[in-house]
């Protein structure tokens, strides 16, 4: 029982990070219809910014807010300057720009801050003694913090989409950009802000995650595998569905964690393969994802 709860909490924690990155992907996909391959790298870049600010003596909470703001601006600028001019040409072109951003940002991180691993300060209490005990298993404060953080973002996003005038415009652009424009929506501005929100969510996820990643280090490849998992989770849940991102991300985190704990006979890297295999099977039978609504014609 204790192992089960340990695995569950570990899975939900990792899953919360996948949910956050998946949500960032969903926000962009709903409005722009493209997948932002550079999502993880936006998060990584802003993590470096947060780290750098913390070395200057900023409390990490403040650095988190600053890095989210930086992420927001980066997202807006990327959409306006790089994606929008290209989108008219073809879908593939935007994907390639995303890949270019991915490579470019990763390189920029190394160039600006150097390739050595960096120790990241703690946002949430992290020592082995900071936990509450449930049925013999230890529920660490930082895990709870990450899960709560994820719930907070989900709540705020849902409120944004469904209860604010701007959210109405975002949904309109996501449904039919031409009709939205005919009704007076400034589509370009909605898209830029969507990308900004998406990048800010990614920053939030990044800064939450790094202290928890063993070892407590920030390096250039930190986000690569997370992006793969998050993309898989988002695809599984339906690229345009918030609910799908939550279910997909948490589900993937838990499955991965359970396989880690109980499926040791599978060996190390096969767990990832098995998790992804499950996703492929789902997508074969329901290409729009479990909760997705829009027909996905080209990816």
């Amino acid at each position, binding site marked *: 029982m204790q192992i089960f709860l340990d695995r569950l909490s570990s899975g939900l924690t990792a899953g919360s990070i996948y949910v956050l990155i998946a949500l960032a992907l969903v926000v962009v996909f709903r409005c722009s219809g493209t997948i932002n391959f550079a999502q993880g790298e936006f998060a990584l870049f802003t993590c470096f910014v947060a780290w750098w600010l913390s070395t200057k003596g900023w409390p990490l909470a403040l650095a988190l807010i600053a890095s989210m703001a930086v992420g927001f601006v980066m997202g807006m600028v990327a959409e306006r300057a790089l994606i929008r001019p290209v989108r008219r040409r073809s879908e593939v072109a935007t994907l390639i720009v995303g890949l270019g951003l991915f490579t470019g940002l990763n390189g920029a991180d190394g160039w600006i801050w150097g390739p050595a691993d960096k120790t990241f300060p703690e946002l949430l209490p992290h020592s082995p003694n900071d936990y509450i005990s449930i049925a013999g298993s230890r529920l660490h404060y930082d895990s709870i913090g990450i899960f709560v953080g994820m719930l907070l973002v989900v709540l705020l996003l849902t409120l944004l989409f469904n209860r604010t005038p701007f959210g109405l415009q975002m949904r309109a652009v996501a449904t039919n950009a031409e*009709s939205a424009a*005919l009704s007076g929506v400034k589509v370009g501005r909605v898209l830029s802000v969507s990308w900004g929100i998406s990048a800010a969510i990614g920053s939030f996820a990044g800064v939450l995650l790094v202290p928890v990643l063993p070892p407590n280090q920030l390096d250039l490849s930190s986000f690569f595998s997370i992006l793969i998992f998050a993309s898989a989770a988002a695809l599984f849940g339906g690229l345009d569905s918030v609910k799908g991102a939550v279910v997909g991300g948490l589900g993937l985190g838990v499955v991965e964690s359970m396989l880690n704990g109980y499926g040791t006979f599978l060996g190390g890297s096969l767990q990832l393969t098995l998790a992804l295999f499950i996703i492929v099977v789902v997508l074969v039978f329901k290409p729009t994802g479990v909760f997705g609504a829009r027909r996905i014609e080209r990816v």
Partner: protein
Amino acid sequence: MSAPSTSQSSSTRAEAAPLLELDGVFAGYGSTTVLRDINLRVQAGEAVVVLGANGAGKTTLMRTISGLIPHTGRIRVDGNQVSRVRPDAMLRLGIGLVPQGRGTLTGMSVRDNLRVGAVSRRGARAIGTDIDRWCEVFRPLGQRLNQVAGTLSGGEQQMLAVARAMMARPRLLLCDEVSLGLAPLIVQGLFEVLGQLNSDQGTALLLVEQNAELALQVAARVYLLEVGSVAASGPAAEFQHNDAIRRAYLGY
């Protein structure tokens, strides 16, 4: 005595400035020119219909005025040339489009569709009143406010498209083939509403129609579009009562 006459002529000039004017407009898709040298005007409060066969360029005309298609030539609103003709800009100048195919925001509720129509406006209460009003004019919309718009029938979606465009309170409503694919009774009802909009509220109309008979009952003036150019124009009465024109151009 020269001063009064100058002011008189300038006020006449100001009165005469049409709400919308196209002057030597060419437009098309890529290398294909569809509209050639279009000269057209709509005065404030006027109802004008553009008739023409399939492929004459009627939809291209509507989309050009709305800014969905680039053009060369001059488009003027209230006598002032519009430098960047774009959908949201034209809407803010008071020109709204009911597009062909309705453009329904299919995944959103009927109420949300109407709310989107009003994004260019301020004042939640006035917007709410307008929503109520359109639900009264179009009963089915009122009954289905919370329903997903994509599940509405063709006629209901057309009503929604008109209501959504009117939520922005435009001075000129462009209607692209609102009768397409709809039952005659529904089309009749729609044209009654459009007619009332024009006569009671003073909303100018520029209708593009293949259904000439109904459109002529609403419109004061007619333009006839043939292969991208204006072949004829004049008062609606002339078109209705001139047998030769009717048979040659309108097919009845």
